[in-house]
């Protein structure tokens, strides 16, 4: 049955209500089960031996003593993981990242693994594995890696025919930037750097793996995408996809970091080798060293504008450090850089660079926050130079419906102008500022994605409904999906129970990333519900003995219409469900789709800070997020996404960074010295949800989860500039950097 994705502008009966989430009680009582909360009889503990060097050749690994330790059931090296990737570079990179083959590529890179009956035996065995390394020169800085003579991370990687650490170059934009610069009354050139950060989810990676002698396996794992994990693990281990059942546990935070496998193929390989269940949980140190942080960057920005604030040319080149394997981070950044603006001449170049650091994974609107820092900081300075209010400056150049975006597509109805107007008119802008306090604002963009999804809606014999979806619930989406199903069926929210199905119960579902969870599963749910409604209408027709076209569905019941049958009493969903056995069997609706048309999202933030000019310490005293959600299915959870994303951006702006030593080793692999914001660091974060419906979704839903991590870096930089008169171009804007900037300015 064909379904129309177009936004209908309908009035909602239950969608939009702030209902209680179905997993709430389990989570406040400790009953909810996360990745490390499952156990199997006879399970072994799996531990990984990791490289202490940033870059080295593995000369020899001697596991003989380790294998003899009492209680050890399997020892694993890359020799146990044959290369079955068949030329697929992405899969090969994952294979090598899971277990080093001929070289270790970063401090913490896995070299061997052990499964034993308890932790102490496993630790004993790890200590007895003798690895002979031949240290190689390393490079950890993105600009150093591009210099002539830099150590090569992947000697086979070539640019212009020569071995290089540059692994990608992407250009986006239109018009003629050089001509535009000549037209400008003022040209501003700036350079910026941002340090590497980690998603910082509180739950470390954890899984429980079993593999039977017949080659079938089960994996319980904390993940954002159990279907993609299944595909990857099956590919690396040479298992049939259908024979590997992956169940997603509750997830304790992901933000992109759990879209990629790290220890899971190793756990499965250990389970296969030992013929016992193997449980593996990463320590916090391992999470920082050997999962997937985001990129560090260095960038150059050049913007030309007329005296009246019209931008005539906009250029940015941003270099991203990918870790030891090529990624598309430069591409994603390049696409987002100028997206908020309607520009005649613009260009964004994203460059990917290899370094001896862990393999980068997505982190909430990946690659966008960095370029936005450069763009929004420079725009702010331009506006100041021209004596134009920063919001007004942006409004004069803002993208609207019909604008050709900097990355290609023409925009439909979008929210950037409304968010800027909302910021301009927000009471926050009128709050009084005292000495050493300053206000900054900035905007940001994220595309959001659609992707493959399918949902199953099953009507129970008592009329309550089971909705099974394949997108992992990272933040409360089950409530929203239940609301959507209830809305479609015309029943109350508490009659729908949404579950995340394992990989054997549904067709493929793409990972929950790109803010796609509620958007895609929501769409699949709407259409699955409509299928179920068609089935129920047909059953009602049978029960009444009338033609199907005389039946309509309204407010949770089938109604006979027309002169002939119109006076028949309505049949509720409950009544129809009770008769299902006699009318044709279980009632269900199912929908598979590659959801597209996910609406783009825009946000504008306002931030007030106070800076202590004697120490450079910055306190955020006021923060407001304005973001377009398309349609807020459950406003509490939409607000929560805005606030959580902003908090991560604030941490990134002020204190979070990976600190590397001269030896190429990570010095702050823990929450003590990797400084995420604590409760006393933040004020209340005010939120304003705008709803400019997405024309390509029946309810107008846009993805909401990511966009608000994009503006904070510049919002804070702009606020610091207004507080104490210095411009920081290096993120995080930690106290020593601010104090140094003050000293340099004073000198």
């Amino acid at each position: 049955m064909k379904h129309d994705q177009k936004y209908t502008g309908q009035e909602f009966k239950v969608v939009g209500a702030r209902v209680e989430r179905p997993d709430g009680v389990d989570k406040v009582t400790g009953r909810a089960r996360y990745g490390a909360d499952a156990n199997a009889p006879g399970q072994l503990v799996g531990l990984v031996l990791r490289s202490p060097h940033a870059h080295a050749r593995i000369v020899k690994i001697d596991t003989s003593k380790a294998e003899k330790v009492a209680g050890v059931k399997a020892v694993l090296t890359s020799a146990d993981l044959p290369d079955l990737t068949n030329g697929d570079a992405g899969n090969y990179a994952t294979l090598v990242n899971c277990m080093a083959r001929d070289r270790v590529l970063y401090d913490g890179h896995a070299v061997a693994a052990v499964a034993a009956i308890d932790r102490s035996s496993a630790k004993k065995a790890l200590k007895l594995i003798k690895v002979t390394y031949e240290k190689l020169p390393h490079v950890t800085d993105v600009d150093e890696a591009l210099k002539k003579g830099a150590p090569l991370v992947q000697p086979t990687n070539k640019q212009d025919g020569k071995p290089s650490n540059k692994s990608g170059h992407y250009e986006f934009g239109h018009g003629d930037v050089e001509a535009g610069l000549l037209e400008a009354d003022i040209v501003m050139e700036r350079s910026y750097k941002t340090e590497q950060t980690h998603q910082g989810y509180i739950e470390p990676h954890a899984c429980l793996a079993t593999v039977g002698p017949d080659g079938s396996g089960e994996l319980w794992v904390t993940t954002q995408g159990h279907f993609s994990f299944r595909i990857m693990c099956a590919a690396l281990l040479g298992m049939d996809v259908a024979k590997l059942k992956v169940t997603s546990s509750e997830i304790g935070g992901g933000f992109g970091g759990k879209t990629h496998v790290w220890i899971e193929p190793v756990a499965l390989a250990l389970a296969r080798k030992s013929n016992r269940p193997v449980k593996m949980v990463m320590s916090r140190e391992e999470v920082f060293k050997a999962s997937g942080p985001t990129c560090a960057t260095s960038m150059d920005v050049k913007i030309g504008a007329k005296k009246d604030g019209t931008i005539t040319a906009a250029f940015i080149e941003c270099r991203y450090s990918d870790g030891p394997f090529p990624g598309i981070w430069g591409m994603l950044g390049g696409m987002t850089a100028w997206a908020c603006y309607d520009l005649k001449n613009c260009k964004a170049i994203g460059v990917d660079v290899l370094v001896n650091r862990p393999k980068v994974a997505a982190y909430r609107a990946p690659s966008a926050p960095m370029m936005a820092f450069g763009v929004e900081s420079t725009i702010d300075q331009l506006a100041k130079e021209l004596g134009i209010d920063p919001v007004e400056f942006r409004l004069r150049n803002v993208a609207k419906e019909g604008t050709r975006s900097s990355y290609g597509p023409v925009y439909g109805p979008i929210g950037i102008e409304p968010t800027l107007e909302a910021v301009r008119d927000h009471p926050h802008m009128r709050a009084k500022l005292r000495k050493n306090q300053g206000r900054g604002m900035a905007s940001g963009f994220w595309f959001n994605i659609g992707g493959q999804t399918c949902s199953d809606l099953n009507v129970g014999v008592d009329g309550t409904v089971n909705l099974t979806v394949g997108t992992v619930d990272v933040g409360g989406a089950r409530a929203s999906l239940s609301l959507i199903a209830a809305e479609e069926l015309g029943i109350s929210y508490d009659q729908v129970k949404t579950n995340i199905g394992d990989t054997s119960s549904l067709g493929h579902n793409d990972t929950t990333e790109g803010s796609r969870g509620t958007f895609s599963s929501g769409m699949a749910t709407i259409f699955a519900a409509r299928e179920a409604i068609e089935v129920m209408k047909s059953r009602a027709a049978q029960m009444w003995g009338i033609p199907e076209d005389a039946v309509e569905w309204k407010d949770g019941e089938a109604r006979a219409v027309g002169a002939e049958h119109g006076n028949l009493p309505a049949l509720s969903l409950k009544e129809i469900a009770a008769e299902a056995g006699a009318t044709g069997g279980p009632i269900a609706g199912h929908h598979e789709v590659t959801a597209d048309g996910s609406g783009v999202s825009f946000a504008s933030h306002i931030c007030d800070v106070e800076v202590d000019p004697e120490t450079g310490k910055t306190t955020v005293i006021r923060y407001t997020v304005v973001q377009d959600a398309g349609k807020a299915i459950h406003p509490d959870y939409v607000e929560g996404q805005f606030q959580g994303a902003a908090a991560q951006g604030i941490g990134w702006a002020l204190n979070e960074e990976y600190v590397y030593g001269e030896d190429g080793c990570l010095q702050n692999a823990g929450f003590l010295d990797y400084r995420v914001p604590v409760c006393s660091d933040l004020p209340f974060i005010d939120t304003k949800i705008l709803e400019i419906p997405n024309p390509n979704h029946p309810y107008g839903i846009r993805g909401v989860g990511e966009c608000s991590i994009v503006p904070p870096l510049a919002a804070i930089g702009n606020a610091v500039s207004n507080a104490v008169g210095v411009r920081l171009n290096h993120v995080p804007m930690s106290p020593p950097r601010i104090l140094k900037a003050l000293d340099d300015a004073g000198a």
Partner: protein
Amino acid sequence: MTGVHVSTSINGDPVEYVCPADESLLDVLRDRVGLTGVKEGCGTGDCGACSITLDGTLVCACLVLGAEAEGRKITTIEGMANGEKLHPLQRQFIDNAALQCGVCTPGFLIAAKSLLDDNPDPTVEEIRYALAGNLCRCTGYDKIVRAVQAAAKDLRRQKK
């Protein structure tokens, strides 16, 4: 390695276990006693996800040895609700959307209860500083603080 035999009380029930001397109370609770509501976020006392009370004092279970629990009284998240009746903090956390992924929630609830037991009418600043030892990466803390304020109000009303 010889094990240590411990007799203790957890959420009001007598519990006995044998554990290696160097095993943390966190590992004992999760792996031997089966109480997985207490979470490991870091293992080094920096995140508060393993918060419990030991003889009424708020502590991180990862920084207590299993052996130290001898003769002491432990409370964990599993002991917070009264049968089916949720504690006002638990109820307000749900109602105020103070959790997203929920993994930090047990630690926050134990810490918040410890705060309100000592200080039934805390200011926002007092709440924020009392909870500084509990990391949350999802919420930005806004709705958590509001939930604690609301629960404090409920508890003060109950006492009247």
